[in-house]
């Protein structure tokens, strides 16, 4: 039984809520302090993207708990303008946060798995997973 928990992102305050929920889940399933902070940072990046560029969206968390590995999945979905040139936003230093190592490439590095689907005019769906080591 892995119930999904979601946070709607509409105002900046919601980013804090998403971080809090994600961090709590991460702590409960056994991530250390540093990884908790990294997961919170990844949530920040995804949630800020929704807050800044899409009308509405949400971030959902799911615990993965198999015999051989445990981890957290986060899925960020919005129905914003979508991403025109995916290979470009995945380039380092492309996003507004250029030079900070942040943006989507940053999320990809903070997490263990990363997947992005986007359609112009329809929205974006990003899924990222991190495993407990």
């Amino acid at each position, binding site marked *: 039984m892995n119930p999904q928990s979601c946070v709607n992102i509409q105002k900046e305050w919601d980013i*804090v*809520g998403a*971080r809090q929920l994600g961090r709590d889940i991460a702590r409960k399933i056994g991530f250390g302090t540093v990884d908790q902070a990294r997961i*919170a940072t990844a949530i920040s990046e995804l949630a800020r993207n929704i807050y800044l560029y899409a009308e509405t969206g949400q971030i959902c968390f799911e615990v993965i708990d198999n015999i051989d590995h445990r981890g957290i999945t986060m899925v960020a979905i919005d129905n914003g303008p979508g991403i025109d040139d*995916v*290979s470009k936003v995945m380039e380092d230093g492309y996003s507004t*946060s250029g*030079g*900070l190592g942040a943006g989507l490439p940053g999320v990809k590095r903070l997490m263990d798995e990363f997947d992005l689907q986007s359609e112009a005019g329809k929205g974006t769906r990003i899924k990222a997973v991190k495993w407990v080591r």
Partner: protein
Amino acid sequence: MGDMIKVDAANYKDLMKHYIETQDEQSLYGVEQVSKEFIKNNILPEEIVNLHIQALAELYPNMLEDFQHSMDFLLEAMIAYGMAHQEYQTLREKQNELKSEISVAASMQKTLLGTTKPTIEGLDIGVISVPAHQMNGDYHHFVKGKDGSLGIAVADVIGKGIPAALCMSMIKYSMDSYPEESMTPKAILKNLNRVVERNVDPSMFITMFYAQYLPAENLLQYSSAGHEPGFYYNAATDSFTEIESKGLVLGVSPATEYNQYELKVNQGDMVILLTDGVTECRDGERFIESEEILDVIKQYSHLPSQEMVTQVYKHFEKLQEFELRDDFTLLILKREV
């Protein structure tokens, strides 16, 4: 800017105080945003630690001496990260310089290698060539002879980036210097092979398909230097066959001779030339089969050639999730009915 940093520093202290009292997520989100501002303003990691020490000292005037010392120690450890971070700033500037140089070179290459699609009575020509990265390592070129014949070159450099681009400009200017007519495909390849062998790094090879279409006889004469084979569509039998042609890639051996082949093109027939960027498209982990390419081509074969190649490109662009792994060049000649 100096004032902004002071504001951020004060902010840091307030956020920290709040966090010590409540351990709330909001303060941590706050410090993340403040840190980003610091990085933007080139504040180094050791300065953050120092800020932390100062804030602690203000909040806890009687801060245990041992903790004070431990913090000084941590500050020292951060100096090395500060140095690495500064090297990064410099590297970033250099990178941007190189990037803009390459983008100038790429647009120059586009002008340099530009070719005009000629108009030939009774022949419908479509061509598309899209680079995977900034610089195109594929090349195609049309030469219209005074005798009405049409020369068509399609080439691919094995090698990429700037060296490949330099290489292609060599090919282009060599070809431009040939006397307009009189040269057969096999003679052109033989000649180019010598130029490449003489001038180019041994690690770099070029494959080329050279065809000459003679409208008066509806004949296609062609030779290949190790190039990806094209396809011939026979309208009478409604079937595709591979255009067989053997030949060594350019630049391997100075004395290479090339075979020449010919093909009768009837009404409604099509000749499809391409580079391996088309045939080696991938769908996830799987390479597509050449049948799939022909199916897609057939699906659009009622369209004019230029629209055909565009639609075929769009199909495979989407299949590969908009990320080309290799330069993509597709050229279709259709003899009109």
